[in-house]
């Protein structure tokens, strides 16, 4: 049997776990681990410029592949700098393992140099966290960490590793467990058959059905089953911001996404539905608007892997706890066997109504002859990338425009911080994806506010040659904040202007990349094409867009799903 130090066991465990890349930043408490990394070539380390970016890189990778990402940082500030990234992953149920150095065991609690109680600090934003108390435990703890992170409702797991656990002076037998079992953790593997049957009966009897799918469909790898069920039934479908791509956006049964900035037709259809089938979605406040006015005539079937998501904000009539793929599979076979068929007359009338809503609004915006509209930038990028890029986004107006106007036909391609709304997420997430999918087009939509929250990563892009395309929708303001101030604070733009913007072109060039400024409408398409033709270059596109544009539709606060602003002057 091989004898390894804790540090070597850690790296070997990652290798045995199938980890190819880890994202991180070294420091005192992690030095034994970094030395072990140096002495092997299986697990590759990507050095970021700020630990938050390491977490977002791992997160981007996890969202694009469905596999857990891995982060390695030192104790104290290294660990605390990961918190925003971990919280981002936690809110969106992204599988991830964050390995943090810690001061030596005998120093814990003594306010030692670079000591932080990372177990305590991270507790509210992790699925689980663990401390290593003996080096020989490391393989099992690593196996457990990945198992917990990636099963059930996924989420981030933090492993805190005191420096003495990785010392080269102590060696132990290495054994990587093939399986781990936790008596207190048993994710559900099947939905309740009786409940599924009841749900199918309700579904087939519905007159105005609506399917509402969320990020859980993507996390649960159930897009194929969803498409089969939806097309078999012929029912309309909407999805959440996190569910974008779980069903092809260009399909006619797809009404676009729903909620605060969802489409008019989705929100109207939700409000008037008599049956809602919620799949891997959690009735978030950005979806439901005022819960007491939510979909008054609808009965609700709710499928989710996490029982705590069911009836948390909106009471479910038929709860089904289980993995969405297996539950949908069972539903599909029940629909096939069922004697009852959807009521064709009712469905036709329902579609007629939906088509009227679509015709009334659909997605539209006012074009202009002289200024570039942010929406048309997104549409142009969609055309140029043939709707097939991995698209990451930061947070704000540009995020909503990207989600509204880039039509995603595949899951795992729309990568954004939905739950936490983390500015600074987009660039590092794009980097994590590009590293793992070097042949694919990776676009980051951002704004001049968000991009500056992790702009230092342009340096990492240079080091590892990550030619992502950064599309900066530059409106010279914190657009979403400004929009709310326009609408709710009589246009008092408190701190929402970005004065003294850097010259992003020079900045990109200083980091060794290409910068292109676009401020004339006629240049938009040709310069975008020029940028996307540079396959091996990171191109920073600084695009000056309409400073006064708002994101619409926008639900009226404290209203029902159907209460929306459709433009600055139209309210329904």
């Amino acid at each position, binding site marked *: 049997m091989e004898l390894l130090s804790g540090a070597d066991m850690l790296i070997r465990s990652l290798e045995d776990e199938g980890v190819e890349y880890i994202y991180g930043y070294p420091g005192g408490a992690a030095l034994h681990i970094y030395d072990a990394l140096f002495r092997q070539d299986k697990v590759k380390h990507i050095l970021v410029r700020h630990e938050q970016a390491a977490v977002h890189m791992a997160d981007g990778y996890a969202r694009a592949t469905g596999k857990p990402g891995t982060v390695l940082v030192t104790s104290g500030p290294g660990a605390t700098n990961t918190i925003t990234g971990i919280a981002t992953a936690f809110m969106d149920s992204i599988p991830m393992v964050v390995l943090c150095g810690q001061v030596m065991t005998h120093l814990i609690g003594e306010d030692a140099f670079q000591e932080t109680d990372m*177990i*305590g600090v991270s*507790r*509210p934003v992790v*699925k*689980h*966290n663990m*401390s290593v108390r003996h080096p020989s435990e490391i393989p099992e703890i690593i196996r457990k960490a990945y198992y*917990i992170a990636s099963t059930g409702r996924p989420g981030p797991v933090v492993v805190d590793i005191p420096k003495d656990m990785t010392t080269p002076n102590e060696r132990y037998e290495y054994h990587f467990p093939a399986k781990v079992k*936790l*008596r*207190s*953790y048993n994710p559900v593997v099947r939905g309740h058959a009786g409940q599924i049957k009841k749900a199918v009966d309700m579904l087939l009897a519905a007159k105005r059905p609506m399917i509402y799918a969320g990020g859980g469909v993507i996390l649960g790898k159930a897009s194929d089953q969803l498409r089969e069920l939806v097309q078999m039934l012929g029912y309309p479908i909407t999805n959440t911001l996190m569910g974008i791509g779980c069903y092809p956006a260009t399909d006619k049964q797809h009404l676009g996404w729903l909620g605060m900035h969802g489409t008019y037709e989705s929100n109207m259809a939700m409000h008037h539905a008599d049956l809602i089938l919620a799949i891997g979605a959690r009735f978030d406040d950005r979806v439901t608007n005022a819960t007491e006015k939510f979909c008054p005539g609808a009965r609700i079937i709710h499928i989710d892997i*996490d*029982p*705590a998501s069911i*009836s*948390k904000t909106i009471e479910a009539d038929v709860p089904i706890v289980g993995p969405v793929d297996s539950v949908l599979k069972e539903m599909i076979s029940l629909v096939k066997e069922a004697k009852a068929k959807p009521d064709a007359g009712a469905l036709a009338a329902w579609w007629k109504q939906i088509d009227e809503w679509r015709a009334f609004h659909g997605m539209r915006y006012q074009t202009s002859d002289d200024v570039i509209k942010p929406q048309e930038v997104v549409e142009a990028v969609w055309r140029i990338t043939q709707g097939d890029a991995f698209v990451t986004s930061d947070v704000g107006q540009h995020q909503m425009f990207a989600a509204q106007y880039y039509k995603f036909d595949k899951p795992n391609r729309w990568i954004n911080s939905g739950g936490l709304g983390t500015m600074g997420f987009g660039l590092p997430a794009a980097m994590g994806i590009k590293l793992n999918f070097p042949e694919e087009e990776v676009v980051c939509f951002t704004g001049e506010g968000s991009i500056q929250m992790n702009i230092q990563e342009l340096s990492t892009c240079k080091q590892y040659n990550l030619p992502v395309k950064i599309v900066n929708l530059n409106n010279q303001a914190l657009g979403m904040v400004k929009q709310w101030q326009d609408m709710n604070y009589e246009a008092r733009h408190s701190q929402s202007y970005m004065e003294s913007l850097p010259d992003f072109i020079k900045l990109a060039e200083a980091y060794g990349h290409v910068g292109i400024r676009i401020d004339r409408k006629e240049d938009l398409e040709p310069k975008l094409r020029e940028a996307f033709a540079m396959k091996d270059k990171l191109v920073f596109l600084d695009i000056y867009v309409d400073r006064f544009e708002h994101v619409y539709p926008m639900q009226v606060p404290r209203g029902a799903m159907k209460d929306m602003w459709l433009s600055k002057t139209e309210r329904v």
Partner: protein
Amino acid sequence: MRRIISVLLENEPGALSRVVGLFSQRNYNIETLTVAPTEDPTLSRLTVTTTGSDKVIEQITKQLNKLIEVVKLVDLTEGAHIERELMLIKLKATGAQRAEIKRTVDIFRGQIVDVTSAIYTVQLVGDSDKLDAFIQAVGTGGVLEVVRSGVSGIARGEKVLSL
């Protein structure tokens, strides 16, 4: 409504703080909390009393169940159960009060466990209402110090919370 939730928890460092953290993080209320290892040293038994609507209680039990270290839990208030709390209370006991306090302690089936010329220390076991009633009966004027253990509970009959 007041509920008593009993939890079997992995007896590991940090497990308790996860439970307590969950309550503050999700804005749930803890009225009392007791915790100690069971006959199986790998498990702790934790009893928490809380109040909330049925919806809130449902969320509390679901969220507790999600904690990796929570092995099992039961809402004792859903069925017949026994609830006990221990109180140690130090009372001013001089002059005529001395005999009166002694009588009250007997009525409540408590015990005087320590005596000085001016003070009785009384031990009392019962459900929380009984302990409240005792304090009311002796009158808060004479109370010098109160220590309550928080509620422990167990289901009546054959129901058992174990692995």
